[in-house]
């Protein structure tokens, strides 16, 4: 069944590449860029990896046996901060269920040192924190989810079989209910 899925996926990719191509040499480019995870910008003294969307994208499409919770947030977003403890709690509780959490900060560059670092340190956040710094939002938002208008908090939950996108904040109960659809 998996092989069939892979085959069908390949077929779709090939067809869509072909459509895009239209006599242009786009195909090889897109094929390559999908495999390159390491264009991480290293800002001298910020504690977190800083990605543009091309750098972040592979983290949204891993095909291992983990379930990933990708939360888009910022220190200036109050409802984002309200739900952060639930992600932390779930990370602790689901240790044995192969759940990984990545908190993608959309803080603006001038906030990285002044707000983001102190906040993460003060709260002792254990989830992985990365920074997405890519102003071309109209290009990358639909690549996270076609359903996403751009409001945060927003969360993507996925594993190799399934993905769901939520343009909303979670309660602890809601987060668990959604996560249970992936790990059970």
């Amino acid at each position, binding site marked *: 069944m998996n092989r*069939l*899925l892979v085959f*069908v*996926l390949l*077929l*779709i990719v090939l067809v869509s590449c072909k459509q895009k191509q239209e006599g242009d040499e786009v195909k090889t480019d897109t094929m390559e860029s999908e495999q390159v995870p390491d264009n991480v910008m290293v800002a001298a003294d910020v504690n977190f990896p800083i990605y543009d969307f091309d750098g972040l994208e592979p983290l949204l499409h891993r095909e291992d046996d983990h379930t990933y919770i990708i939360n888009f947030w*910022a220190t*200036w*977003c*109050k*409802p984002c901060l309200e739900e952060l403890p639930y992600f932390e709690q779930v990370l602790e509780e689901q240790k044995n269920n192969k759940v990984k959490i990545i908190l993608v900060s*959309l803080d*603006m*560059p001038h*906030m990285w040192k002044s707000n983001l670092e102190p906040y993460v340190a003060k709260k002792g956040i254990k989830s992985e924190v990365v920074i997405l710094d890519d*102003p*071309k*939002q*109209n*290009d990358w*938002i*639909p690549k996270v*989810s*076609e*359903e*996403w*208008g*751009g*409001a*945060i*908090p927003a969360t993507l939950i996925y594993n190799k079989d*399934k*993905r*769901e*996108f*939520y*343009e*909303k*904040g979670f309660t602890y109960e809601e987060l668990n209910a959604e996560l249970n659809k992936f790990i059970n």
Partner: protein
Amino acid sequence: MRKLKILGAVVLVFLLGAAFSMGTHARNTHIVAKGYAVGDVVVDFTLKNIDGSMVSLADFATAKGFLVIFTCNTCPYAQAYEDRIIALDAKYKSKGVPVIAINPNNPDAKPGDSFAKMQERAKSKGFTFPYLLDEGQKVYPQFGATRTPHVFLLQKTDGGNVVRYIGAIDDNYQDASQVEEKFVENAIDAMLAGKEIEVTTTKAIGCGIK
């Protein structure tokens, strides 16, 4: 040969079916807030402006359209666009498309977006346009605004005010000088010239409305 053809057809149908079900499966099944789509006619509203007056779209007899912008005092993205919103009003009010700014946040949930704070902000920034409070939060759900800033370009027609563009002001919130596509300006220019608007919806990060 004929058998092969049938087999081929069966495989094709199966693959199409599989592709289709995958496509729908990968899609999100949650219903995202409804609201106006491009082409819809907007229901007029009456909201309180920072000067105490009540403002409706019908008050603007000579307008050719409106740039309705849901924005607020407190969101860093809204703040990043304040000067550009003022510039849009300066450029297009005289051409018949004034900015109408609406704060959709509930001041009880966001004290920084209270009516008094709106008055302060408008004064300190020198707003040249109405800055309305969506008291009771009835108007933003009608539009389907989900964040600040969120722009709706309307064109006045005999049939009412029609939505022509929904989305972001431009493609770079961080740096006005690095903007490559001025979505809103392009849309207004095309609308006023009677041309088709090329990009009618765009997406941008913004603060969820509270």
